């Protein structure tokens, strides 16, 4: 049974229709000791049927530790968002740790739209400030399911 109502599905389908790039949701998981990995996979599985520009790539944290490490991911469930452009794949460096349920699902959809080609909604001043960054910065935003 789908987790989304048919009206929510329809709304998402319309939003995703504007995507100009294909998006890959890299889903990091493991078989044991992961309470919310199955739930996360179920949530992600809602998206590809709504757009042919969204695909899921499952990465096993245990079996493919190198890929996880390259993404800075050491726990599951986790999602890394990438997009296809000019024949290559670009990592957005946007990550979700934990099941993207509740309000986080909306954040995930926004991240997919951004990766899919929607223009960032940051102000010119913010963009200029961010462009001045010249060394690695890691930001963690903690949330709770609502």
């Amino acid at each position: 049974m789908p987790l989304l109502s048919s009206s929510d599905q329809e709304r998402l389908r319309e939003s995703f229709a504007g995507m100009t790039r294909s998006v890959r949701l890299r889903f990091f998981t493991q078989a044991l000791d992961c309470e919310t990995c199955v739930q996360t996979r179920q949530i992600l599985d809602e998206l590809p049927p709504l757009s042919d520009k969204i695909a899921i790539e499952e990465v096993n944290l245990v079996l493919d530790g190198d890929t996880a490490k390259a993404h800075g991911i050491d726990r599951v469930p986790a999602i890394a968002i990438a997009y296809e452009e000019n024949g290559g794949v670009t990592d957005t460096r946007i990550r979700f740790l934990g099941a993207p349920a509740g309000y986080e699902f909306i954040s995930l959809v926004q991240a997919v739209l951004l990766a899919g080609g929607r223009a960032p909604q940051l102000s010119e001043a913010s963009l200029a400030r961010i462009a001045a960054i010249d060394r690695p910065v890691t930001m963690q935003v903690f949330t709770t399911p609502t």
Partner: protein
Amino acid sequence: MAFVSPHITAYAVEATEFPDLARRYRVNGVPKTVVDEEIEILGALPESAFVEQALAGFANGKTGGSTDAAAAE
């Protein structure tokens, strides 16, 4: 911010699923943003204030929507 800067990586962390991280970064309320384990921002701020605080001390040296959406962008 991660999307527009190749130097920024942004994690949205579900605090209740990772209590070890929540403890390590003293997450007593949400949203709470931790930048490079140094800068802490509690609560959602207007975009300009969020960007300024999150990047305080980085590059050009000034001190200095939804929080996770701004971090992601």
